[in-house]
């Protein structure tokens, strides 16, 4: 997937900063850069960031082999409802499909909750007589006169883009395509998106919505990619551009133009990709990511080094049924506001100060203390060194705000009120995060003790050990550059895409050819996937790898089991072998979940998802930059009492160095807070592993030599 250059660039666009990383594929060397965002023209920030990165790394445009870009443009367009004015053509009787949605309210108990404003209101939805039966046969065909009328309707409605969604099109995509073509002939300037062409899975609202979302964001995305390509061209960069996707992979610019909906939740997914790929073996195979930035915090569960995909993700009001790396926002983030209720109890959130006005310390007009302010008032973060000193914070204002809140909460005394209020805030916030983590694991029946936390984002490493201590995790991994970890994930991402087919076949009936339809669908999707993958790379990359997921259930049950199959399991299986493979996996899983198996009853295979991946070359592990010697300082940190914490520059620590808390490690993109009773060790690849001490370890730093002695 690369041009001639040895360097691959990863870019992650955030609300406050764009993060960039350059990685040398031969040496493993990595260079990081942060550039302030330009919300009015995101491509300008990318151009500036790229200039800055080339400068810091000392690279020429020709050294760049590929640019891997994560963008939040699709996400923001949907959240802010700024996409094109989209209309829809649906089957007769279905005009209100976007109004009814799934008939669910956001909260059961609150009777002031309304329903969401539909993406396509009913006055822009038009009905066609064309209809497909549940078995995929055509009940009513496309009528030319009706197409004339629909074209008139669409024109009158002022449509800028159109989604076509027929009931049961997932069983017969051609009819939708026929309508889209017939209408394109009549309205050649309008983009039409057929729902089954985006994702042919049952559930008409979700599928129609995907088509409508895709149609609505495509024009803006197209314009952005055009500007971006031309700006990179101005810098002399002509390396191919790839866009990261919801499933943790990446696709070519052309695919992203056709299917921008695949990029909508790519940002958090890239961090998960980075965690899976860069966590050293010391971290084990079970990871929980903790991505905490200035405004929010996310977690993701990675069992067995595989990302968890969900088909129940949401963007604002809308469900996204595409496979998306499962990332969950948790109860408290850096921007969460601390307040006192009428009964005098300290509460945190759900309101967030966001990045504007942000915490009090940002000095942008925020007046209510946030979690970020608590780091300053407790002494964990040094206001002068935030982001390596690039963004001065007002620590005194943060402390004053927290002192006022503390007195309001009945804390007495003068000197320590701010620190004590901040500490109470951190305790409550940490408890909130801890229970969210417990619930994530409980939902899956997993045991926390088997997991290592990977902490990143601007505040991930600051809060991680407090959270781990609270939740009962004993290992935390801090990457070399946690502040730009998602950009690293973008640069690492492999070309990957998912394909789906609805099945509806019974397996285990004892009939000879029961596995044939599944085998046929697997072959068809595999071929489609491989053809697509080769087109992404102009054929110069490795052979595509195909993995699959089958959703299956007993016919009389309402719930499915998702069965994953790796490439090895699938190769060279005939229909009967495939049937056996699926049945064995199903019954095994059923026994694990429900305590018994029932091999006499046939199993209904409902859906097949195929994932194609092009394996990417991975550079050698980066060699840490040579350590600089910087004198150790001390700072006091309130953790229930004033503690004397060692303060070190992380860059001064060679592999093998051990630091026992209370200690603070400073680096340009974050502060690492090692709580008392925990010890960090610099691993050979530069990652920092922080673990809970077994016994009593004396606080302070032991360099490798001291450690050895």
């Amino acid at each position, binding site marked *: 997937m690369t041009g001639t250059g040895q360097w691959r660039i990863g870019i992650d666009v955030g609300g406050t900063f764009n993060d960039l990383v350059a990685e040398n594929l031969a040496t493993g060397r990595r260079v990081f850069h942060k550039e302030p965002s330009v919300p009015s023209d995101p491509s300008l920030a990318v151009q500036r960031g790229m200039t800055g990165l080339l400068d810091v790394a000392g690279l020429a445009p020709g050294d760049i082999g590929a640019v891997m870009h994560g963008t939040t443009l699709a996400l923001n367009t949907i959240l802010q409802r700024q996409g094109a004015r989209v209309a829809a053509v649906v089957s007769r*009787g*279905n*005009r*209100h499909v976007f*109004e*009814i949605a*799934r*008939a*669910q*309210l956001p*909260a*059961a*108990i*609150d*009777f*002031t*909750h*309304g*329903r969401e404003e539909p993406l396509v209101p*009913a*006055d822009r939805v038009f009905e066609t007589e064309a209809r497909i*039966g*549940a078995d995929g046969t055509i*009940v009513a065909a496309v009528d030319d006169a009706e197409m004339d009328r629909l074209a008139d309707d669409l024109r009158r409605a002022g449509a800028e883009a159109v989604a076509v969604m027929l*009931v*049961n099109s*997932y069983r017969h995509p051609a009819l939708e395509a026929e309508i889209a073509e017939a209408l394109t002939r009549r309205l050649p300037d309008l983009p039409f998106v057929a729902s089954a062409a985006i994702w042919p899975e*049952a*559930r*008409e609202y*979700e599928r129609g919505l995907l088509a409508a979302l895709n149609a609505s964001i495509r024009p803006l995305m197209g314009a952005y990619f055009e500007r971006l390509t031309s700006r990179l061209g101005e810098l002399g960069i002509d390396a191919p551009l790839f866009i990261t996707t919801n499933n943790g992979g990446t696709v070519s610019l052309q695919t992203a133009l056709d299917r921008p909906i695949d990029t909508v939740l790519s940002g958090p997914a890239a961090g998960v990709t980075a965690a899976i790929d860069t966590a050293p073996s010391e971290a084990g195979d079970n990871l929980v990511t903790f991505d905490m930035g200035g405004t929010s915090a996310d977690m993701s569960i990675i069992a067995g080094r595989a990302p968890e995909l969900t088909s129940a993700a949401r963007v604002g009001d809308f469900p996204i049924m595409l496979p998306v790396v499962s990332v969950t926002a948790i109860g408290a983030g850096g921007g969460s506001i601390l307040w006192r*209720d*009428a*009964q005098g*109890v*300290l*509460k945190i959130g759900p309101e967030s100060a966001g990045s504007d006005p942000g915490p009090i310390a940002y000095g942008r007009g925020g007046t209510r203390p946030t979690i970020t302010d608590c780091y300053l008032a407790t002494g964990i973060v040094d206001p002068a060194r935030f982001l390596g000193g690039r963004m001065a914070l007002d620590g005194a204002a943060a402390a004053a705000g927290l002192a006022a809140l503390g007195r309001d*909460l*009945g804390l007495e005394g003068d000197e320590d009120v701010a620190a004590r209020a901040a500490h*109470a805030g951190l*305790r*409550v916030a940490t*408890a909130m995060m801890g*229970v*969210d983590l*417990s*619930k994530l694991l*409980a939902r*899956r*029946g997993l045991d926390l003790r088997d997991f290592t936390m990977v902490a990143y984002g601007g505040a991930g490493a600051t809060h991680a050990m407090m959270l781990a201590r609270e939740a009962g995790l004993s290992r935390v991994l801090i990457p070399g550059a946690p502040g730009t970890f998602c950009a690293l994930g973008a640069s690492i991402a492999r070309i990957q895409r998912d394909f789906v087919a609805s099945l*509806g076949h019974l397996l285990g009936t004892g009939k000879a050819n029961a596995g044939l339809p599944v085998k046929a669908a697997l072959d068809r999707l595999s071929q489609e996937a491989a053809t697509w993958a080769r087109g992404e790379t102009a054929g110069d990359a490795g052979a595509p790898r195909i993995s699959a997921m089958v959703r299956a259930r007993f016919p*009389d*049950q*309402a*719930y499915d089991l998702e069965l994953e199959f790796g490439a090895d399991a699938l190769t060279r299986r005939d229909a009967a072998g495939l049937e056996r493979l699926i049945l064995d996996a199903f019954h095994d899983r059923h026994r694990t*979940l*429900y*305590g*018994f198996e*029932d091999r006499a009853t046939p199993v209904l295979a409902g859906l097949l998802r195929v994932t194609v991946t092009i394996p990417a070359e991975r550079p050698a592990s980066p060699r840490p930059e040579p350590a600089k010697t910087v004198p150790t300082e001390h700072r006091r940190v309130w953790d229930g009492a004033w503690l004397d914490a060692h303060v070190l520059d992380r860059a001064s620590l060679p592999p093998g160095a051990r630091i026992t808390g209370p200690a603070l490690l400073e680096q340009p993109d974050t502060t690492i807070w090692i709580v008392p009773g925990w010890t960090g060790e610099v691993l050979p690849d530069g990652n920092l592993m922080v673990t809970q001490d077994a016994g009593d370890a004396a606080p302070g730093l032991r360099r490798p030599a001291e450690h050895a002695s």
Partner: protein
Amino acid sequence: MTLNSFDLEILRHKTVAAAEEMGLTLLRSARTIYVREVADFATALVGLDGKPFAYPSDLGLSAFVDLDLKATLERTGPLREGDVILSNLPYANGGLSTHLPDLQLVRPIFVGGELIAYGWAMAHTSDIGGGVPSSISPRFSDVYQEGLQLPPVRLMKEGRMDEDLLSIYLANCRSPETNLGDVRAMIGALEAGGRRLTEIAGSHGTEAILSFQTALREYAAEKAKAVLRQIPNGSYDFRDYLDHDFVSNVPLRLKLRLTAKDGTVDLDFAGTDPQVASAFNLPTAGERHPYLTLRLLQLIGTADKTVPMNHGALSSVTTQTPPGSIVNPDYPAACGVRHAVMLRLMDLVSGALLTACPGIVPAAGGGTVLPVVLAETDATTGRRKSAVIQSIIAGGGAREGGDGVDGRESGMSNTRNSPIETTEDAAPVRVELYGLRPDSGGPGRFRGGLGLVYRIRMLKPDLAILARGLERFRFAPWGAAGGRSAPPCRVILNEGTDRERDITRIDILPVAEGDTLTFMTPGGGGYGDPFARDPEAVRRDVARGFVSAASAEQDYGVILTAAGDVDVDATETARADAFDRAHTGFDFGPERKLWESVMDDATATRLNAALGHLPASARTTRRRLILEAAIPALAGDTLSLADSLRDPGAVRSLLLPLIENLEAEHGAAA
């Protein structure tokens, strides 16, 4: 309180999460469709007094925050570590269950030999025996027909399963494997809760857990009381009706007097009709019951999102339920379809609250949930199988400041619908129409939410449709503060053909291949004067097909041009001409007005008082005979009262002597 406020908040988060972990554990491994698809389950951590202190914030049913284990614990006596109590009989567990398929499990939590709390889990299981598959039919007249009755018994003793008891239970279920899976899932949930609370006690101390149970309830009580203080001191009466009890055609009345005083609220249901000989009874054991107080809990939770959801939130609420009535029936009255009563109780409490304090809650919602079940006979095995093909809900009531929600209603189970494609894949039907029902929202300055319209065509012979708990066919969802009532529910067989027929009640309806069945649920009542509605909102409703141009003109006084824009001048004129709308209170719709022209409050209350001298189980029959004698049409199945009550005076002259006779009987007896 002995805890500091920071620890209170931290323990609140931790214990609520523990209750949620219980729910997640149950959800992950339960097998019944009710748990998995309709979220018909609940979990909580319960204090030593039998009242919950930690309840999930958004998982499973929100309805049981006000539960009480007192009766269960009294019945079983002191528990030992590892005991698990099982029950399902409302008449033996103090109304903890409300019908037999709901299994209730309770497990004590000990730390270091000291009892510190109880775990509680409940799930609606697939079947508990009785006269029909899934154990619920509106026709049943007592709980013996509804399945196996389980008073509180020890399913596990000190960690060991009572296999004898378990095998009796499983022998009485039509789906023993599924039920066993559910029981195991519930036990798993209780164990998870116990484990987590023990961990929390490990880091905070058992003493902290015990004082926390009280402190958190007091905290909730203080917040809740601040909300309830909005209700001005005074007593407020309200009445609402169920169409009938299914086995007769006589309307049923629920009556409430809500008395508010400085944040305390008393709900007195005196005057509510006697228990019925069908499955519409709600056993509450005469105690404060979650279904009686649910609307108040929603009011509290809506007004202050920070109120911890626990028993304390309702500690300033008391209830009075007349023995032998629908809301406090005597054993063994059937109770399978008590859900319909619960929905009407929500309207009843809303109406009393609105009488006290305009704007405090929405007008009546559509108030019906319509689970459509299709039964088909398997051609090869000959076995009949049935499946829920859609759960059609109604529209929400409008409120001060906002339209009612279209096609959705808060306070219901709030689960997702069944997509057309899922339905058509699973059942031999074609869904020809699934939309918002035009003109079904009560007109108002804030429009009632629209109901739904759902039409299926049968693609195979020998099918049957089952639908239970159908309501609001006769008495409309009411509007408030000048807002209008919404059109009632309709179900039409073969709409638009010469075989068209209104279906007014369904137990099992046989249908032929090619038949269509159209379900129309009611919208919510409107709020405020419809002529004061923003004309632009009316225009948008017309453009989206929610309101017809005719209704815009008649009900809202908004005239649209041919292009669909608001004709400002014509609208102004139309609205100025409307001089006869000096209506600012409730609008109950035409049928209720007719009914109360005969059965006014005084008459109905007098009849119920006279019936009160009869044994509880005899009252409903006597009431029916008296009303059928006075209004012969009630003996048929026509819902409309228009023909039979054309001359209220004549009907009353028949009715009153019958009531006098009844009174005289008791006079003689005494």
